[in-house]
């Protein structure tokens, strides 16, 4: 696959000839669907900009009458998540602290794995790849219990370390745990992406570098890396979106203050105490969605390529 848009139309083809009525119907349907897809987001944004009585008393499709940014400030700084009322900002940073290392580590490992599996093949390389590929698709329910047990053991080890040498070295830290989990279960995808990309990379160049005496890492750094920008962007975006949006692992392995953004949002929305502040909930939801939406707006083409590469391997 080249760096061009996977959905771009490169066919040499006669322009489709339709009557004016047909064209009108086509455009009408397309615009109607576009409105349906946009509506929930528009309603979310409008709701987040209204005072609460306007939300509960008014119509959700109406433009805000008393435009206010207070719900946003409340969501970010003062709304209650569980028992503490300090907004979602801390959880937003939890997610950042989890996402950045997890994306970097899983992407780099995926790049090296893809390099080995295409340019340094060994007997059984297909089986190894197949086994890593299947790892992408397992239902995470089937690893939750062992993972909880192992992370519990790591936590105990961390406490022992704290007692003996004074620092836990990250053992038992919920963020470190989530980084580990996301790296492990993201490896299949990152390996898949880089393998498929390096598969089309000319092996002759690697061979030539080998004859010139370049070693394993030198070839990777000098020959493959300079040509890997597109697949790095695709993989980073894919991993970033997936890890940022994860809920199951976050909810299972990081409780309370250590929760990532998605878990905090879920707790804000589904709180059982007090009046439901829909406007604040929606502001929190938009804040939770902002990083991935922003990435989508800035690099949609690479985002779509990642999705496609994760689905069809042909």
């Amino acid at each position, binding site marked *: 696959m080249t760096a061009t848009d996977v959905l771009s139309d490169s066919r040499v083809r006669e322009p489709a000839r339709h009557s004016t009525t047909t064209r009108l119907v086509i455009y009408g349907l397309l615009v109607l669907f576009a409105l349906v897809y946009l509506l929930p987001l528009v309603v979310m944004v409008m709701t987040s900009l209204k005072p609460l009585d306007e939300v509960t008393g008014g119509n959700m499709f109406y433009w805000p009458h008393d435009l206010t940014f207070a719900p946003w400030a409340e969501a970010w700084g003062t709304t209650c998540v569980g028992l503490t009322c300090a907004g979602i900002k801390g959880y937003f940073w939890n997610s950042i602290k989890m996402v950045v290392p997890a994306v970097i580590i899983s992407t780099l490992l995926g790049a090296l794995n893809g390099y080995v599996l295409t340019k340094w093949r060994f007997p059984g390389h297909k089986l190894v790849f197949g086994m890593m*590929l299947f*790892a992408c698709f397992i239902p995470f329910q089937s690893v939750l219990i062992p993972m909880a047990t192992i992370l519990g053991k790591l936590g105990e080890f961390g406490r022992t370390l704290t007692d003996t040498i004074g620092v836990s070295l990250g053992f038992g830290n919920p963020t470190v745990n989530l980084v580990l989990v996301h790296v492990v279960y993201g490896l299949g995808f990152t390996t898949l992406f880089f393998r498929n990309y390096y598969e089309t990379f000319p092996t002759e160049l690697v061979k030539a570098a080998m004859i010139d005496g370049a070693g394993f890492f030198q070839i990777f750094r000098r020959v493959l890396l300079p040509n890997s920008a597109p697949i790095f962007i695709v993989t980073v975006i894919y991993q970033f979106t997936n890890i940022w949006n994860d809920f199951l692992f976050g909810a299972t392995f990081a409780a309370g203050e250590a929760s990532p953004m998605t878990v905090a949002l879920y707790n804000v929305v589904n709180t059982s105490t007090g009046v439901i502040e829909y406007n604040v909930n929606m502001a929190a939801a938009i804040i939770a969605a902002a990083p991935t939406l922003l990435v989508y707006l800035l690099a*949609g083409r690479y985002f779509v390529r990642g999705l496609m590469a994760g689905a069809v391997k042909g």
Partner: protein
Amino acid sequence: MTTTVEPIVAPAVRSPHGGLRDRLRDLVPKLVLAPSFALVLFFVYGFNLWTVLLSFTNSKAFPNLNFIGFANYQKLWNWTFQTDPPSNWYTALVNMGLFGGLYVVFCLALGLTLAILLDQKIRGEGILRPIYLYPLALSFIVTGTAWKLFLDPRLGLEKAVHDLGWSSFHFDWVVNPRMMIYCVAIAGVWQTSGFVMAMFLAALRGIDGEILKAAQIDGASAYATYRRIVIPIMRPVFLSAIIVLAHMAIKSYDLVLSVTGKNPGGAAELPSTFMYSYTFTRSQMAVGSTSAVIMLMTIAAIMIPYLYSELREKHR
């Protein structure tokens, strides 16, 4: 280390007996791959085996190794047919069928429709296409939160339609335990249909224009061209899309919780929520792991043949 005679020739030309350097060089790639493979072996395959093992025990709140044979499977099998009152497992399976079926069928139908419409050389594709695709960037929790409000009868759609004057309009599915699962399907279709659209659109754009031109010259109508030429050519994409969607449906967990607001009374139970609640809140970890094994087996039955054929095709 004894001094070995350094080969004067380029390292790529191997000495017939394989010097230490050559062997080291052969080892490096494997050493680089080994940690990742070990992680996958342990955390994926080891953990799956561990869960299988637990499904044969009577683990309660904590894992133990008191083996009780197939008793947990027997229990789930009996629950599968316990309809009055419905067991949680029965509800989970029925909901899985409803949600999974609707999700796959509507995503395919909507995705194909949008792809065909977008492929008619229309102006403004660059604006429309991203609109159909943006929900994919959202997390299921955000999607669920949005749809929960959107469909809420007191605030959302029902109220808006009442304000328009149609006061008998009634749409309370999202708070009606018997209809909740349909709302989960609606939100799921909204989130994923754009992705299916992209898959179909990429396939449509890969079709050789000459074939379509030939059909046009032969006087085939647009409908006949799609029905008899385009859609049959895209059969592999249908298969890929169905497999990806089915696998997402089985795994979906957060969407149910967020659309329904914590799955009240287990009305929108799915195997994934069943597994979670039996394992972590009802202290029946063995039953939870049994349901996890059933989920794993189902996905393996779908994915392994598919991945196998995909990997084989590549090397033809």
